[in-house]
């Protein structure tokens, strides 16, 4: 009787197992030629196994990273596996398929590298579900679950189609220009230009010529005619941001354009027609400015035909996870990175922060993190200093939050810096701080200081 002493799987048994899994699996030799290709790999790539075997893996896999940053080459060169990296491949029908890939080295019994193995998962369903969920909370480039925002989303198509002048009010960084863009893109003027002018950024002396243009000789440096923004936006939309900063003299000219649809470039006697839809925006309270006599009431009522108010981010914190997810994904695409998101400490810090800069501040914080975070999740120490210390972000305007300077804040900062300096080695950090390792662990837990990964 022959006693089986070797419990290792036969090649046939291995093949049966690999063909039964839902993830695609293939192996390559040291020349990156395919040496095995399971059934799921056939199904996801659309390439039959017999055609894949013996071919260069990039010609079978057709991934967006093959030339610039092949995961298998990275693994064979560095010895480090790639885990769940999101990429896309082209299937045999020319369709892009989103997948996540992981790689590992193949070694012989002497430890010599003989190739690599790559596993990949089709994320098409996940991606479609994500778009479905996001689609419910999305209008153009704006995303929100907030009730007030969704009220705006619901009426926006009608507002866009009406062609009426719109006034958008909201703090800096709340997305006023995005909303104006959405209105333009849904209007009958979407094929025309959308021109944005920040009235607060241009000196008043230049703003008039910027908006209405001028003819040669209108003033000393006017050597030739120049079209103004009203002319450039002809047939389209003109977005006037920070309209509350416009001088009284210019307010008169704007009123005339809005009422009579006519204007004259500087230095010209010729009257031009303005076929432009105006969307105005401000972060100031125009009604109060009218009462104070700093803004013309007739102009206010002329632009206040439809008024939309964008709430600040602190009043719509339920949108923070959606916005973070969206911004991280956009930045990953733009920078060819694979940041997976933010950890719990960052989530907590974001919820506790007041966001005086609103969504723009959120984007800046994440951009800062993208520079410092090498991969995986974003942690507190990747964010600007505002968000560090105990996992609670503060701002100078927040009540109940103290800026860095209390003894506890200083203690938390010292602990964090010591840990980073010692590469998160608690033994070394506690020795440097002169405290017990258990004490360090307790303080880390209390201040929300966590190592990366």
């Amino acid at each position, binding site marked *: 009787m022959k006693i089986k002493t070797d419990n290792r799987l036969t090649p046939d048994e291995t093949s049966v197992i690999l063909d039964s899994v839902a993830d695609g699996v293939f192996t390559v030799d040291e020349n990156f030629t395919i040496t095995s290709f399971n059934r799921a790999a056939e199904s996801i*790539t*659309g*390439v*039959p196994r017999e*055609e*894949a075997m013996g*071919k*260069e893996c*990039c*010609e*079978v*896999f*057709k*991934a*967006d*990273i*093959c*030339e*610039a940053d092949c995961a298998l080459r990275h693994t064979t060169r560095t010895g480090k596996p790639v885990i769940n990296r999101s990429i896309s491949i*082209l*299937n*045999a*029908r*020319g*369709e*892009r398929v989103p997948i996540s890939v992981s790689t590992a080295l193949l070694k012989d019994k002497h430890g010599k590298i003989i190739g690599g193995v790559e596993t990949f998962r089709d994320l098409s369903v996940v991606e479609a579900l994500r778009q479905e969920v996001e689609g419910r909370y999305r209008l153009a480039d704006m995303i929100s679950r907030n009730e007030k925002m969704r009220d705006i989303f619901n009426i926006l198509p009608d507002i866009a189609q009406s062609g009426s002048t719109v006034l958008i009010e909201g703090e800096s960084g709340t997305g006023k220009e995005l909303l104006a863009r959405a209105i333009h893109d849904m209007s009958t003027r979407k094929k025309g230009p959308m021109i944005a002018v920040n009235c607060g950024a241009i000196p008043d002396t230049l703003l008039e010529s910027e908006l209405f243009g001028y003819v040669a000789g209108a003033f000393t440096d006017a050597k030739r005619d120049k079209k103004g923004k009203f002319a450039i936006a002809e047939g389209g939309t003109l977005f006037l941001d920070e309209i509350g900063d416009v001088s009284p003299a210019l307010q008169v000219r704007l009123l005339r354009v809005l009422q009579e649809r006519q204007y004259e470039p500087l230095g010209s006697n010729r009257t031009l027609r303005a076929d432009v839809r105006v969307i105005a925006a401000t972060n100031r309270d125009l009604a109060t400015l009218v009462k104070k006599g700093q803004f013309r009431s007739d102009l206010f009522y002329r632009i206040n035909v439809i008024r939309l108010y964008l709430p600040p981010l602190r009043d719509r914190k339920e949108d923070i996870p959606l916005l973070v997810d969206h911004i991280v994904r956009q930045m990953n695409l733009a920078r060819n990175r694979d940041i997976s998101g933010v950890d719990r400490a960052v989530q907590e810090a974001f919820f506790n922060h007041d966001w005086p800069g609103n969504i723009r501040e959120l984007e800046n914080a994440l951009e800062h993190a993208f520079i410092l975070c090498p991969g995986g999740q974003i942690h507190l120490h990747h964010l600007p200093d505002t968000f560090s210390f105990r996992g609670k972000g503060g701002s100078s305007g927040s009540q109940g939050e103290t800026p860095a300077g209390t003894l506890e804040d200083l203690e938390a900062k010292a602990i964090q810096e010591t840990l980073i300096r010692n590469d998160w080695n608690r033994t070394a950090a506690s020795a440097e701080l002169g405290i017990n390792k258990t004490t360090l662990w307790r303080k880390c837990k209390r201040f929300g200081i966590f190592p990366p990964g």
Partner: protein
Amino acid sequence: MRLAVPEFNGRVSPVFDFCRKLVIIDLGEDGKSERFCVDWSEGDPIDRAGRLRDLKVDTLLCGGISCELAWDVARKGIRVFPWISGNTGEVLQAFLAGKLPDPRMTMPGCPKDRGPREGWPRGWGACRGRGRGPR
């Protein structure tokens, strides 16, 4: 005629959308040819059709290409011969000799009886759900 062939390691690049080098070949009526390379490591795939047009390319020989991009390239009046694989020099010779499609120069997974031929292959179920390109 001005040909463009995306190249990677001396072979036709596997995915035109993400190729990093484009080889341009000018074929004169006297049979002489000139070639030069263009660095395509920067830029958005969505702009590639326009960039080909700006280079005055009239024929593209490529490997894999997404439905959307193939449609864009073809709409700009550029002939597209997709799903080609092989050494760049050999592929060019085969094209000039009128020997494409050649099953030996067809990417894995591409139907061999059709092979790479001009235009976006009809009936390949291209561009599902996008509403663009031939169906």
